[in-house]
């Protein structure tokens, strides 16, 4: 395992200390239990928005705490959902009297811990709504699975809901908006290499030099199947077709296109992927009205990418364009 760390068990805490030292103007860090809170929280009269999940996906979620996005984020251990007491602490820290929205990615661990936290928060008289994101079309949503995973759309939902909360929309409105974004968004990812967690020190899976893993999650889990690695055009065709046909996205639709790097793929390749996605969607009469390209929801150093599409309307576009000032995403 080759990593720029000290003790594997200390990575999350030491990274938090780095974040606190670096971004004290934007955020405040609580260590016991671990929470990253917007510096000026709670904002009176504003719906508080928190999210959380395992670490190793940076900048998500901690990097999105700040004006216009999240009020707090709960970092778990690497690839491990955080605990209810972190979420309770975050909920109390950001409650400005207008209630708190929990944005939860659909993983058993995240869902169960957030459920416990919501119960505890309600016991303390805080109004809480939870919205679970589940945009990953690689997983069949059936009784035979834990349901679709929450991936790329989560970042977009945090941005759009954050903007709505800044406008003092009510908890019910912000939660409904979050459901709308999740409902109109779809994602799929692929990997060229596995990743290594500090805790295990071993590659999360083995992949031959000419193979790629299709339908991966963001925790180094193996994907749905593996294939011979083809050119970027084929990879994009593979991911985008599954996404477009699932919602479905149709000719005339306006979309936000999010090309996300898994961590180890150079930006120059992500732009090649974006080129292919742009051509693919043009071919189907779908217009890219907004885009996001880069490493925003990662799996440590995994090489690969995911594609997320969100069907836009004027209101969603307006909220996407609204200002945000966070360490990980800035809109001026």
């Amino acid at each position, binding site marked *: 395992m080759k990593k720029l760390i000290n003790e594997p068990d200390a990575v999350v805490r030491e990274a938090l200390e780095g974040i606190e030292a670096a971004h004290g103007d934007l955020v405040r860090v609580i260590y016991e*239990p671990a929470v990253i809170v917007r510096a000026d929280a709670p904002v009176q009269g504003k719906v508080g928005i928190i999210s959380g999940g*395992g670490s190793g996906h940076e900048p998500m979620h901690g990097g999105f705490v700040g004006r216009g996005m999240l009020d707090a984020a709960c970092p*778990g*251990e*690497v*690839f*491990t*959902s*955080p*605990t*209810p*007491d972190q979420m309770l602490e975050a909920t109390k820290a950001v409650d400005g009297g207008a209630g708190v929205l929990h944005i939860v990615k659909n*993983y*058993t*661990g995240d869902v*169960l*811990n957030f*459920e*416990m936290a919501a119960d505890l928060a309600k016991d303390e008289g805080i109004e809480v709504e939870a919205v679970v994101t589940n945009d990953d079309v*690689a*997983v*069949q949503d059936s*009784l*035979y*699975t*834990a349901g679709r*995973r929450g991936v790329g759309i989560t970042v977009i939902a945090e941005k759009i809901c954050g903007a709505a909360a800044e406008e003092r929309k009510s908890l019910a409105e912000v939660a409904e908006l979050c459901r709308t974004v999740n409902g109109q968004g779809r994602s799929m990812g692929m990997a060229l290499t596995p990743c290594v*967690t500090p*805790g*295990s020190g*071993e590659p*999360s*899976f083995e992949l031959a030099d000419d193979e790629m893993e299709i339908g991966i*999650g963001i*925790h*180094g*889990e*193996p994907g*749905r*199947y593996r294939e011979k690695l083809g050119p970027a055009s084929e990879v994009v065709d593979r991911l985008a077709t599954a996404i477009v046909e699932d919602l479905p996205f149709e000719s005339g639709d306006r979309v936000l296109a999010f090309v996300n790097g898994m961590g180890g793929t150079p930006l120059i390749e992500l732009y090649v992927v974006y080129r292919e996605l742009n051509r693919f969607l043009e071919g189907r009469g779908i217009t890219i009205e907004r885009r996001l390209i880069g490493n925003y929801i990662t799996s440590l150093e995994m090489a690969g990418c995911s594609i997320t599409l969100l069907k836009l309307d004027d209101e969603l576009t307006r909220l996407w364009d609204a200002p945000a000032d966070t360490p990980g995403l800035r809109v001026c």
Partner: protein
Amino acid sequence: MSISASDVRGWIARYADDVAEHRAELVKLDTAIGDGDHGTNMDRGMRKAVEKLDGLEGGDIAALLKAVGMALVSSVGGAAGPLYGTLFLQMGTASTGREELDLAGWANALEAGVKGVQARGKAEPGDKTMVDALLPAVAALRDAEQDGAALDDALRRSADAAEEGMRATIPLEARKGRASYLGPRSAGHQDPGATSSWLLLRTLAATAGA
């Protein structure tokens, strides 16, 4: 013969050691069909549980079990945190006011705990989860009760049943938790949570047997 508060303390301490010892193995199992953190999570949680008990006076079994549950909930995270946490919290509630647990008392406690796990996680037998090790263990305790077996014998039988249930998860396709994302690719691997559950019951049998 029965399970005393000091038996519970001994059980938890030994289980923490067993988990630490099998940490890498649990990580390996979870890497195959999950995200490779189950061993690390349980190890972190059990160390906290032991700390918590060390700081806790007295012989109230319910208090001890609940303390373990709270420690797990607030330190394990992932799916296992709430699930094992609930298991112990419910075992605690079911043991309220008991100075010691006889076979029936322990069977009730474990059954209540597993009910809690199922209520939280919605897992059915055969979903390839810890439930596949825990439910057979409860059934084995009930059978032993019927047979009027001694506690240590009953505990051994419940541990064996858990082991059988754990092995039976190997061919299964996961329908709950992270492993379910793999669909058919999840078959052929032993479930990490079922494995840590078997360890839990095996340790209890060993503790009481000693």
